[in-house]
């Protein structure tokens, strides 16, 4: 190869690379425009409404019954899609000495945050968990190999593993939703099966105080968008950059 040929080839390669990059940038802006039309499901939980009924677990029961979530007695086997934990342990890094005392009795409702940048999805070695086009983090119970890497990667402790066969621990099996086998990971799915039928998530519907608001963040007119624009809200561990879709309202 002489010098001329070499220059020609490198020139062609360089043009190729640049045009490829431009194409990438252009297509990514198209994707962004598309995303605006896409749904971005999110949940807002109002502390003040939630505390009104002490010891209420209507949302938890509603969710766990329709999703065939087993009731294990041993704490280490527990499976939870939605549960409540003390304010201090959920928001430990954001709490101060005064809020810790003030909110001592506050139970915070927790579930999968359906992160915009989900750490669990990228660690899965079989793509058994993925982000749907509407932002919901899904799990394929038939593909999961049970390595539990996603559990280690989730900063919110939102994923549970079937340490034992769950079926004997489900009071009444709901035939409309798959029951899981031992050896796979599961978690809240934002009631994807209900949303696709135009229904609200079971927990939202079950709440007697209307403490939970569910909707599309990409729709500026949705209830949740209006709520988040007007009321002060916090997220769990926002500093991790995961961009959680569950917001807590004061």
């Amino acid at each position, binding site marked *: 190869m002489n010098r001329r040929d070499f220059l020609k080839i490198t020139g062609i390669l360089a043009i190729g690379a640049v045009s490829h990059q431009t194409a990438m940038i252009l297509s990514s802006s198209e994707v962004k425009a598309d995303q605006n039309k896409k749904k971005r499901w999110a949940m807002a939980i109002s502390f003040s409404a939630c505390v009104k009924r002490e010891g209420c677990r209507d949302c938890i029961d509603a969710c766990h019954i329709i999703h065939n979530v087993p009731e294990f007695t*041993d*704490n*280490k*086997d*527990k*499976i939870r899609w939605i549960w409540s*934990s003390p304010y*201090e*342990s*959920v928001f*430990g*890094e954001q709490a101060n000495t005064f809020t810790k005392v003030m909110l001592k009795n506050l139970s915070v409702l927790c579930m999968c945050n359906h992160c915009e940048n989900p*750490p669990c999805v*990228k*660690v*899965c*070695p*079989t*793509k*058994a968990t993925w982000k749907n086009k509407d932002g919901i983090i899904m799990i394929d119970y038939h*593909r*999961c*190999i*049970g*390595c*539990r*890497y996603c*559990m*280690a*990667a*989730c*900063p*919110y*402790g939102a994923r*549970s*593993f*079937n*340490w*034992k*066969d769950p079926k004997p621990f489900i009071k009444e099996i709901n035939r409309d939703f798959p029951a899981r086998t*031992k*050896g*796979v*990971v599961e978690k809240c799915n934002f009631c994807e099966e209900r949303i696709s039928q135009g229904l609200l998530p079971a927990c939202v519907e079950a709440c007697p105080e209307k403490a939970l608001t569910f909707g599309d963040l990409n729709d500026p007119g949705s209830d949740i968008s209006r709520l988040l624009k007007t009321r002060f809200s916090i997220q769990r561990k926002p500093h*991790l*950059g*995961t961009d959680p879709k569950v917001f807590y309202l004061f």
Partner: protein
Amino acid sequence: MIERAFRGTIGYWLWLCFLSALALAGFISYLRQLDMGLGITGMGRDVSWGIYIANFTFFVGIAASSVVVILPYYLHDYKKFGNLTILGEFLAVTSVIVAILFILVDLGMPSRVLNVLIYPSPSSLLFWDMVVLTGYLILNIIIGWWSFDARVKEIEPPVWIKPLVYISIPWAISIHTVTAFIYSGLSAKPFWQTALLAPRFLASAFASGPSVLIILCFILRRWLGFNMEKDGIKKIIVIVTYALAIHIFFMLAEIYTLLYSDLPSHRSHLEFLFSGVPGNRFLIPWTWGSTVGSIIAFILFLMSCQKRDNLIIFASLITVFSIWLEKGFCLVIGGFIPTPFEEYPKYVPTIFEVLITLGIYATGGIILTILYKTVVSFRQSK
């Protein structure tokens, strides 16, 4: 060649029977785990990885450390590592198999393990771990077997072995680096999230792996009269001493950073390991044992210039044990406690978990015994 492994003394057969019995006990326990689910282990929703993954991490380190004898022998033509290199390569083969077995028994759905190949996921470090471990296993089987074969026939090893050896050297580093990246890339686990993890893993591997090799050499000499190059062993001891020094330095650097920066989410894990919390102090003896152990081993190795064999064996044993505790037990389990909810759960392996673990050790023991027996009986027949 391998047929030599099937001719041995009564002691040899008793040893193999003992290992087989242990492996069988492990296998039966594993069948029970398959039937009942991983719930029969001590793992749970908070500490979701236990001694299986701890052992996996440790044995990847042992496998990677064979580079410590392979590199001087092939790259610097250090002939005194001749016999040690064969032993090192076969130790690496065994350790990779053991590491893979530990991953397999940890899976909730082992029947679906091929999904890792059917749906390759380059964004997952576990996928890369599978790639590098399989590659390393194949490389070491080929290199180990063909160079041993060449020695038996007293011919030069085939020319195509050399490039494979050169590939296997950075490959050895990669297997332990990828293993460290499994941990250090998780934003959810502040205790693992340190760029020093991969270098730390390598330093401790280069101390523990050659220590295993030293112990094995003494066993071969004591029971089979297989004499290793004296200078070779001496060199290995020097390597272990330096590796231990670097390991201790890395450990202190990590402790300083965690304590002085005073970030609660990072520091809490270290505090739990070294001093526990009220009502839950189960890891304290192990953490201290491992830390003090590696320092004692380092001092003993420094003193071992007096060539006292018992001292060297003792120091090697402490090194292996303290690094097994540090890298496996304390690091993996310490990363899960406290939980994201600042709870401090306990983790105690169950009898089934321990039997399965021992069973895998025994399986590794059988493979290693057969491979080493072949090497030894060939050398003695000469």
